[in-house]
């Protein structure tokens, strides 16, 4: 980040839809974490995953790739 002309910037607008985990269906396999292009999904202390909403762009890959259907895309809040 120091070299070149690129400067750090705040990630842009908030996404329309954000992922929401259903903890009863989630088996904590980590596939959502592996397939997130924006590195938005983090592993919490309890082993469950959650999205950093500053980074999430709402693409829906985690919702599509979850084998157990534990992730649904919801409006924020």
């Amino acid at each position, binding site marked *: *980040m120091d070299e070149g002309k*690129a400067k*750090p*910037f705040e*990630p842009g607008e908030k*996404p329309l839809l954000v992922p929401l985990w259903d903890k009863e269906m989630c*088996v*904590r*396999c*980590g*596939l959502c*974490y*592996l*397939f*997130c*292009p*924006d*590195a*938005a999904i983090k*592993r919490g202390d309890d*082993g469950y995953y959650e999205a950093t909403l500053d*980074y999430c*762009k*709402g*693409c*829906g*890959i985690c*919702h*599509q*790739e979850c084998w157990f259907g534990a992730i649904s895309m919801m409006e924020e809040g």
Partner: protein
Amino acid sequence: MDKFALYVPQLLPFKEHFLPEAHRACMGCGIALGVRQTYKALEEKNEWMERARWEVPFKQPLPGSLIKDTKEVGEETRPALLHLEKDGQAHLLICFDNEAVTAKPTPAVFKKTFPAAAAARGFHYVATACPSYPFDLIDKVRRGMESEGNSYLHILSPCPVGWDFESEFTVKIGRFAVESAIFPLYEVVTGTPRLTIDHPTIRPVDQYIQMQKRFNHFKKKEILAIQADVDSHYTKLQEGKL
């Protein structure tokens, strides 16, 4: 630690090196996903990561020997390239191919030529990969860095904007490309290709093509021709010929 604490994705390093503060990719970008997985493969090799050099795709010639084979590709539409160095010398060249070739939007033309050209020009290790198969990709990046001579890695990166599909299907479409053998995953060591993922049943190419709106203009005859082309290429690969 309970019995669910150790699934395979958690064996990868959790540290992130490619954060959204540093890039402005669209949502569901295949290249961003590929770069993130590549950087995960290079974990604990900081000197490799620091010396990595990007070649931005605009109006720059390809390095040395690959120029001649890519004349037909327009100058503005070259894919993004990542150079990795080892011991002060260029070692691994990674091509993130999002198929932004405007002149000929036909699958399986461009991708066949690049790895084959690289293998013919004496790269020691040549491989194709796709971010839909992350462990395969990570293995290949590591193997490329460990090989004795130069290596080349061709990564298919689905592009939701250019290919015209919903952003949530990025990973699925890459998987369809591999399962329909339009983009077979193989590695070439000392001239002999070996399929790293060989599905017992091959999907019809039709299913892959109909997922994207960029191929809407294709007629049935053209799809059949592509199917025949893909089949013959795949049989050759299975027999160990490039």
